């Protein structure tokens, strides 16, 4: 019998009304536009994309911090209860969030030990104070801090130590799911490695599932079992990290991979034209087509579906990658990275 996955999101959609200018009529912005994802217990799903692609909003929708306008989230097989109700609160204890800026996430006027104990008190874990203090000490050890650092204030810790404290607080309720929103991008390179190692180690020890939201494909590969690439509120490609990194199928994923700066890499980059698009001004058809080096006529008209590609079953939302249209003159080779930097757009 198939056990329900830990997290199952179906067709999540989140719209905002954005007013352009004081007199402008509100424009509907679809920050997240029909995102479905599945996360098994103890696994990590990496969600990558550039600013404004909806990856952080997806993280908040999954946690129930925001309610979707359409679609549903099921956690441990149960639908998300209405926000603010006791069952919602109980579920929230099972899923926690870690943000980018650890200093902003911590209360500056409170010792970190007290902040780690707070979720224990809120969710009634540990009857006595001594019990809770013991748990705090254990949590600090888990994240690589010393129990005697419980009395420190956030400003007395380094950036890496603060992010460890945030992790300890998130882990206090023994959650089954951690949503980490750019957890390392505010940290220095050497500290990023520490935190990535810690996440992987904690997962193997505690069996926590992680939704790892990041713009950094390298970091995503390092910690994830699967990766989903987002563009303008949709998942455009999904698969094993190595498969997506070594043989990206979607032209956007190809550009993203080729843009990773890497010591000693001789290959030319695929340079995308133009800026990331404005979600309020979503292009017709495939949202990526105005910047796409291999776009053909149908791409401007028809919205491609995310579905397994014939052959290897990679999930990708692209007419060209799916082989539904003849590839343009340049051709889509498996080693798409070797393309010349400038590609004339096919008519």
């Amino acid at each position, binding site marked *: 019998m198939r056990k329900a996955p830990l997290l199952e999101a179906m067709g999540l959609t989140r719209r905002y009304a954005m007013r352009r200018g004081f007199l402008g009529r509100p424009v509907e912005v679809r920050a997240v536009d029909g995102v479905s994802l599945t996360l098994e217990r103890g696994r990590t799903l990496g969600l990558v994309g550039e600013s404004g692609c909806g990856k952080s909003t997806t993280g908040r929708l999954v946690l129930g911090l925001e309610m979707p306008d359409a679609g549903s989230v099921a956690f441990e097989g149960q639908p998300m209860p209405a926000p603010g109700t006791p069952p919602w609160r109980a579920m929230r204890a099972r899923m926690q969030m870690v943000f980018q800026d650890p200093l902003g996430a911590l209360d500056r006027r409170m010792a970190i030990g007290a902040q780690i104990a707070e979720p224990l008190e809120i969710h009634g874990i540990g009857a006595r104070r001594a019990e809770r203090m013991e748990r705090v000490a254990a949590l600090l050890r888990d994240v690589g801090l010393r129990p005697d650092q419980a009395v420190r204030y956030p400003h007395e810790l380094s950036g890496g130590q603060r992010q460890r404290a945030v992790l300890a607080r998130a882990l206090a309720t023994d959650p089954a799911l951690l949503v980490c929103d750019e957890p390392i991008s505010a940290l220095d390179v050497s500290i990023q490695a*520490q935190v990535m190692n810690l996440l*992987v180690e904690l997962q193997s020890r505690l069996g926590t599932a992680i939704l790892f939201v990041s713009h950094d494909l390298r970091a995503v590969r390092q910690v994830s079992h699967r990766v989903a690439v987002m563009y303008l509120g949709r998942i455009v490609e999904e698969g094993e990290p190595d498969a997506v990194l070594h043989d990206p199928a979607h032209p956007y994923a190809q550009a993203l991979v080729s843009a990773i700066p890497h*010591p000693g890499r001789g290959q030319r*980059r695929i*340079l995308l034209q133009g800026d990331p698009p404005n979600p309020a001004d979503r292009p017709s058809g495939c949202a990526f087509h105005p910047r796409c080096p291999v776009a053909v006529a149908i791409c401007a008209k028809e919205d491609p579906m995310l579905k397994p590609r014939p052959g290897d079953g990679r999930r990708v939302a692209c007419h060209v990658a799916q082989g539904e249209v003849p590839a343009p003159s340049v051709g889509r080779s498996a080693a798409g990275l070797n393309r010349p*930097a400038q590609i004339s757009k096919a008519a």
Partner: protein
Amino acid sequence: MSEPLVAIRGLAVDFGGAPALRGIDLAIAPGEALGLVGESGCGKSVTWLAALGLLPGRARVSGSVRLAGEEILGAAPAVLDRVRGGRVAMIFQDPASSLNPVHRIGRQVAEALGLHRGLRGVAARAEARRLLDQVGIPDAGRRLDAYPHELSGGQNQRVMIAMALAGQPELLVADEPTTALDVTIQAQILELLGALRRETGMALVLISHDLGVVAETCERVAVMYAGRIVEEARVARLFAAPTHPYTQGLLGALPPLDGPRRPLSAIPGSVPEPNGMPPGCAFAPRCPHAAAACALGVPEAVAVEPDHAAACLRAVRELLPA
């Protein structure tokens, strides 16, 4: 070797007793691209702000910075104003806040043209438009009248580059020019900097925390840690044979793109506070190879090979056959 374009000797900076730079020696040849790499607080930006006299008044600066043989450290304001934006231009990390929000783009570019090339009015506007074209801003003529908030981050960084090019500099110092930008935009900007360097023959100093960015854009790299340069080499050599344990640590901390996934060799601990520098080698407390001798004195840079220097006692020891 020809005379360096910029020669920095013993540059030190102190903010009210907390040292930010502790003796930097660095030379940039005309037309070369040098990467300056290190983590936050290592002094990579301070080096250039100090060299151009852009630090706040409370900073105490000592040492020597020669531009084509002429001392510019502590030079008269009139001299510095001609150097800045003229012979040495600088662009910064956050393009959106680095442009004046109340002035139009065209005016900000034209200001530099007026200062360094004496162009005014219609001539300045025409040249500003050409520069915006050159840095790849679409519809440059109309963009001259735009305000910074009307452009995207990537376009604002292009405007910053156009402004830097206005004085036809011999050296462009780019301080984390892509850190605030999205990955695909970062690629565009790096490509643009490379192309402009080929076109104009200017030298480039690229300050970055990202070894990958530097590797793709530069010929030579200097790695900084806690206010000193700890290793300096040609790019290929540095990545093939990193000698300083800090450089090795930085490379090990970078998640690989292929191969089996295993824990990264993270550098333990964190960067020392400026007013709590350990004695001797500043990296010793985090160094896997640290020995008692490391705490005795600050190691001097030694050439482990021609064009490859490292400031580490182990490097010295390996040079001397036991």
